[in-house]
Structure formats: C-alpha cells, structure tokens
C-alpha cells in the first residue's frame, strides 16, 4: 500500500509539486480577480482553454518561442477586452448575475473551441529542449539507484515558481501593487481617496488572464488539449481558492501545493485520491470556515 521508501516518497513529492503548480497558476488568477474585483469568474477555466488551444496552434505554426510570447500577450488583451466589454457592467449587479454571465461565457468559449478544433484531444508537441528526462539521482545524492523524472514537468514547476514570485513582487514592491492590495482590502475607501481604481481593476483582470495564458503554454502538454479540460481544472482550482481563503494569494499558493500533494500521495488508492480534495475542503470548512489564510471581513 503506502510505500515509504525514500525514492517513492521523493517521486510523489515531485508529482504533487507538479500537480500543485497548475492548480496554483489557475487559482492565482481566480483569487486575484476575486480579491480585487469581487467577481467569481466561472469563465477562468475557459480562459485556460483558450490559452492551450492558442499555444498548440502557434507552437505548430511558428514554434514554441512565439507561443511563449504571443499566448500570454493575447490572453492579457483578451482579459482587458472581457473586463471592458462584459464584466464591468456587472460590478453593481448581484453576485449571482456575475456567476451566471461568466458561466454563460464559459459555455460559449468552450463550444466555440469545440467547433473549431473538434472534441478530441490534440497532441501538444513539446519543444526539443524540453523533451526527455532528468536523472534525479545525480542531483539528489540521497536517492537510491536510478530515479528519473520528465524534464517538462520540472520546467512547469520552475515556471510556476517564477510566475508566482513575479506576481508577489509586483504586488508588494510597486506602487501599482500597493494600490491593488489596498483595493483588495477596501475598494470603496480607495475610491473616496480619489484613486481611479477602474483602470487598475481592468489591468488586474488582464493579469489574471495572462497568468492563465502562461499556465496554458506550459500546462497544455501535461493536462491534455481538449474542450473538457477547462471545466475539469476549474473545480479543483475553485477549491484551492476556498481552502486558501478567498482573495488570499499566499493562501492560494499554499492550498494549491497542499491539494497537489494530497492527490499525489493518495494516488496508490484510486478511491481515496478521487475524493481527497473534497475531504480536505470539508475539514477546512469545518475547522476554519474562512480558509487557511483568509482575512477577516473579506466577503462575509
């Protein structure tokens, strides 16, 4: 059953980290948008979907380098357009309407992509430099014998760490970040102080979308490229946001890794691994209804 050998433990740790990185990348955008704009974006999974399909197409046509530059850029612009064209009209409407309209948008995007690309999985060719395996036993001397891990998945973990660090740096060390963090606390007060938060909120939405773009470029080869992926990832990502605490960025990171690890370490039992994230959610809700790092007074 539970293998306690150091090798198996290490492998599960890596797998957990890799699964967690995708959750973190998607949940980060979700929680950023939720924390600042107060909008629960049911279309966030669909944004990820747009990203992976764009990544596959651009990768095939122009190579991975172009995909890496173009996809996050397009997603950023798409995010801005979505906020200006749709979401901004819903700030003053009930949360229910926000959820409904983003849900509708998610269906439209998913069906459009299904129409254009078909319902089947499209192979995502990894660039040659990302192919192959990493010999883990050469890096970590405590491992016994021969231990390897797919290179691409390690790249995904590194990309996730870099992205998360960049977002934190942006929010904590720039004036823009300061305003955004203040907006997450109390956007009304900020408006009274004469800050134009609307333009900044638009950029936050674009930013969340851009992160989904990065997630799509690197996560696509791992999560498959099919129309159902968006919704499949949305549910665990929502739970990551809830477990971490709505609107808490560090909570999302912590919860994402927690969920990834939990799924990885219960993989020996298919029954347990399918429900483990829900079990964790229930426990967290009972013990800490606000989420692990949820701040008091945020959307109560």
């Amino acid at each position, binding site marked *: 059953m539970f293998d306690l050998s150091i090798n198996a433990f290490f492998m599960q740790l890596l797998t957990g980290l890799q699964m967690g990185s995708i959750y973190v990348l998607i949940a980060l955008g979700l929680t950023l948008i939720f924390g600042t704009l107060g909008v*629960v974006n049911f279309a966030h999974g669909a944004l990820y979907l747009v990203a992976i399909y764009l990544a596959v197409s651009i990768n095939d046509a122009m190579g991975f380098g172009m995909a890496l530059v173009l996809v996050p850029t397009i997603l950023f612009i798409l995010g801005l357009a979505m906020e200006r064209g*749709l979401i901004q*009209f819903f700030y003053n*409407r*009930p*949360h*229910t*309407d926000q*959820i*409904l*309209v983003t*849900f*509708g*948008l998610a*269906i*439209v995007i998913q*069906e*459009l992509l*299904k*129409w254009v690309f078909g319902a089947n999985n499209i192979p995502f060719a990894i660039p040659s430099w990302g192919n192959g395996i990493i010999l883990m036993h050469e890096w970590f001397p405590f491992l016994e014998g021969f231990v390897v891990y797919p290179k691409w998945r390690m790249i995904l973990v590194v990309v996730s760490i870099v992205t998360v660090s960049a977002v934190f740096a942006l929010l904590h060390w720039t004036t823009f970040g300061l305003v955004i963090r203040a907006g997450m606390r109390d956007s009304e007060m900020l408006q009274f102080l004469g800050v134009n938060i609307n333009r900044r909120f638009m950029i936050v939405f674009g930013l969340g979308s851009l992160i989904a773009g990065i997630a799509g470029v690197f996560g696509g080869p791992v999560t498959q490229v099919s129309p159902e992926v968006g*919704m499949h990832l949305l*549910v665990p990502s*929502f*739970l990551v*946001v*809830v477990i971490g605490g*709505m609107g808490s960025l560090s909570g999302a990171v912590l919860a994402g890794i927690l969920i990834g690890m939990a799924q990885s370490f219960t993989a020996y039992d*298919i*029954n347990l691994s*399918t*429900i483990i994230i*829900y079990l964790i*959610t*229930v426990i967290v*809700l*009972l013990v800490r*209804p606000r989420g692990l790092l949820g701040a008091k007074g945020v*959307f*109560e």
Partner: protein
Amino acid sequence: MNIQQGFLQRNKAVVIFALIALTMPFWFPLLGGYSGLDTKIMIFCIFVVGFDLLLGYTGYLSFGHAAFFGIAAYTTGLMLKDFSAQIIPAIMVAVLVSTLVAVIIGLLTLKRTGIYFSILTLAFAEMFHSMAMAMLQEWTGGENGLTGMPTPMLAGIKMQGDAVFYLVTLVAIIMFYIAKRIERSPVGLMMRAIKCNQQRLEYTGINARKYKLLTFVISAMYAGLAGALMVVYEPFVGHEFLGWHQSGEIVIMSVIGGVGTLVGPMLGAGFMLYFENVLSVDLGEQWLLVLGFIFMAVVIFMPGGFMEALSRLYKRIKQE
C-alpha cells in the same frame, strides 16, 4: 360552491398549467415534438420548480443540483433492479436518500455567503460524479451507466408510453401546487426576506440559516423526485446525470425562463428541451453554442427571462 370557486380563483396558475400539461399529447406533436419528449419536459418541470424555490426566492445559486437528481436516479435504478419493479417504494427511498444527502451538503455549504455556496455545491456534485465513476463503479456501472432494470410497474400497470406521461404530469401538477402553497406560506415570505436582505432578517432575531437549509432541502427533494421519475421514464442511469452539465442545464432553464416566478423556469425547461431535441436538428453540433449566446443575452439584457419579456409585452399591449 363558494369554497370551490375560491379554490379555482386562488390556483388559477395551477389549473392553467394542468390544462396545458394534460393536453400536451394532442398539440405537442404538431410542433414537431416526438412522443416521450413531453414526458421529459414534465420531469424537468418538477426539477426546475423546486430549483426556483431556492434560486428565485432565496437567491442562492446552486451549481450542484445534479447531485440530488443523479443520486435519486441511481437509487431508483438499484431499487428497481434489486428490490422490486414497483415504483412507489423505489421513488420513496430515492427521495429519502437525496434528502439526507441534501441535509449534509446544505449544512456544509450554507455556512458562508452565496459565492461560497455556488462554488461548493459545484464541487460536491463533482465529488459524487467522480465517486460514481470510480469508487462506486460496481453499483453504478461507471462509464457505461446503470442498465438492466425491469419494466417499472405501478401496482399492475406497466410504466410505458402514455402511462408514464400521465403519471409524471400528475406528479408535476401536484408539485407545482405544493410550490405555489410554499410561495404563499410564511416560509415563502422568509425565503424572499433572505433574498432581499439577509442581514436585516437576522437582526430581527430570525434564524435565517434554518430557512435557507429548509429551502435547500425542499429543492433537493424536487430534484430527487425528478431524478427518480427519469428512471421510470427511461430505465437507464448514466453518469452524466451527476455531471456539471446537468446542473448547468437546470440553471440555464431557470434563468432563461425567469427566476422567482415558478412558471418561468417551467417555460425555460420546455424551451430548452424543445431547442435541444427539435430545433437542434438544423443547428447540429452547435446548438449548445447558440443556447450559450441566448443565455448570455438573457442574463445581460433581460435578467427576468421570458417572464419579463411577457410582462413587458403585456404592458405595451395594454397601453395601446
């Protein structure tokens, strides 16, 4: 005589619904609907009426009502298969099971605001979906679905074709009547108060959570009843019954029709199933895309759905 008249007066909506529903086998085929679709529409009418009590009256948007629908369907299927082909005990057990599940999920999901509620109901429904696919595969049949049920029986009558339609329609009329009674009752008032201003309601010393849970469980019972009847209608249970598509479908039906009106969501259910099964012939695979656009347009421009459109139209005609 007077009491009788009063009853009809007070329940005009129910009577009209009953007349339209019971005559459906005569006029529905003229619109291109195949026989059997009318039964399905009636089943979903039951589902959405219960759902509307929750969404339209308390304002809580559940994305996981497929859980109760699916759990009741699986329970009915297993009861028919392993216990007896009689539908009454099967339906009763099914509704009971989905009610119990609803109490547990309600206690967990209603802890915080409506946003939490939407996310968590979606998550728990997905949990049951993945459980049916993996853990409970032996019982549910996993990917293939639950099959091999005998022909359902009500006493000595085989439940097929017209018999199912009239049974389901009768249940739908009764359930609509009950919903109308709930709407007018003190509990209905509480529901609307929760939607209006929950905080103020709590300040008056009323335990709002109790009423939220009650409404949630009632709507889950409606969903469970619909799920059970679905198996009577067609002896098959697929895992899609538990999926988010199913939950989303109910949300779309309710919103397109107009939430908070009880009648609207039933119109929505009829429209959507008609759209999905009859109009989609011309649209092919893209019917869901078109429906998505319609849904978005309704949410953006006409949050009151068809019912709002009808009342606007009615006002304009009256003015002229």
